[in-house]
């Protein structure tokens, strides 16, 4: 729980990268539609089940803790720690060729869920356990990517 239901208060910056982005873009569908819509406003949502307290991402139409349908979204504080990471020296997707070497991490959000994300930092500037905070790169009309930076 963030204790902060005021979504606007926790919004992070959203940088428009639609022109330059050549990588894959999320295509919102079903249970993740609300998540991606919120990214355009700089909000990182997660699902927090009212019935059982389970916090989960990626978004799903079912609560994996108690089977409830459509567990509600809440805004995350957008802060987390590095569970682990790698530095990619070989581009893993189209559009990443000019970016190598780049950091991808599994980020444990303060609210619990773990998220795979780009980390915008030098390859030697990250360690497991480091604190990160979220930014957004808008890559399409429908979605902005959560990208983390050292806190």
């Amino acid at each position, binding site marked *: 729980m963030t204790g902060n239901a005021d979504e606007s208060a926790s919004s992070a910056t959203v940088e428009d990268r639609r022109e330059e982005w050549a990588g894959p873009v999320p295509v919102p569908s079903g249970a993740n539609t609300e998540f991606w819509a919120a990214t355009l406003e700089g909000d990182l949502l997660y699902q927090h089940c009212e019935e059982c307290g389970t916090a989960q991402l990626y978004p799903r139409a079912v609560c994996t803790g108690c089977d409830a349908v459509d567990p509600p979204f809440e805004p995350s504080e957008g802060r987390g720690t590095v569970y682990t990471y*790698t530095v990619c*020296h070989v581009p893993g997707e189209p559009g990443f060729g000019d970016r190598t070497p780049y950091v991808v991490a599994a980020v444990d959000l303060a609210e619990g869920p773990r998220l795979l994300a780009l980390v915008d930092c030098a390859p030697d500037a990250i360690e497991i356990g480091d604190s990160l905070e979220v930014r957004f790169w808008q890559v399409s009309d429908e979605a902005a990517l959560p990208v983390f930076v050292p806190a």
Partner: protein
Amino acid sequence: MAEPIVAGVAESDLGATPDRNWLDNAGIATVRALEDAELTLADVDGVAVAGGDDYMPALVLAEYLDLEEPSLLEGTEIGGSSFENFCGHVGDAMARGRADVVVIAYGSTRKTGPGRDRSLEVTHPTDGFVRPTGLFRPPGAYAMAARRHMHEYGTTEEQLAEIAVSTREWASMNPKAAQRDPITVADVLESRRIAEPFNLLDCCLVSDGGGAVVLVSEEKARELGVPEIAVAGVASTSTHRQDISEMPDMTTTGAAVTGPKAFDEAGISHDDVDIAQLYDSFTYTALVTLEDLGFCEKGEGGEFVTGGTTAPGGELPMNTQGGGLSYCHPGHFGVFVLIEATRQLRGDYTGDRQVGGAEVAVAHGTGGVLSSSSTVVLRREDA
């Protein structure tokens, strides 16, 4: 409970097969494995196929081989461990009298086949949480898990490299292995960076090729008079799928679940195991699997593999054909661990390449991004 018997095994040509497609390689491996069992396509009751760059691969291969009224069609896709998983399904079908001769087959042209270019369009509901990060998969995903293991247990890049070195020693004795020149720990550490902490020599090859395993019922095996290499235990599970961040604990794989189950079913303990053929898509894959199967304590895999424990002459011969790291890796390596385990148990080799008096082998598959695990215990019954 009746146990299926491995009556024949074979590879197609490996390495680069630019004049073949995946079906050619799967088909050639199939008829070679049948020949090994002294059987023909006319004897085949069914096929179990995974991988293949195709939709409905079991139907496609059954048609390609013109099988007549096949009674078992299996295409459960759980990645590189699919073939170990098939062993259980085929055994169940045989126990119910549904089939006597089933071919487990794989073929690919991962190295020379049609483009690996992927569409920019993301349509899978969860792809949007993975692909836009740019993670180089699968290496980067396994690398993240390896990094976490290093953090928790002090595992080092040198220890990971030991696995590549020992595996290469085995490959040096296998004429079919793509890479046979000896390497050192320093060679691994100095090879090109791929996804930290992995360098090139921590990563499997990319090959074309196929493999096949013929499973027959006990009655059929007696009729054929083949060496009785029995599927004595099988277990499979999964922990996640395409997103490595969904893996609950990146230092423990599903092998921690499947190992004990398969060992129990076979009635064996670690001391009984003569050979381990463990999926080695990356050095870390083999290391974490050794731990999870219980050959050493959790976190001690690095120490365990140091000093040639798994090399020729070591206490636990592992990946004795050179593994995915040095022999071949056409995408789904799981069929090849079954092939090599069978050959060692039959005593097909000579000299240092043959593990003397081997009676029990563990063949383990890993699929996805450390996502699925399947363990098979093979036992020579006439030992």
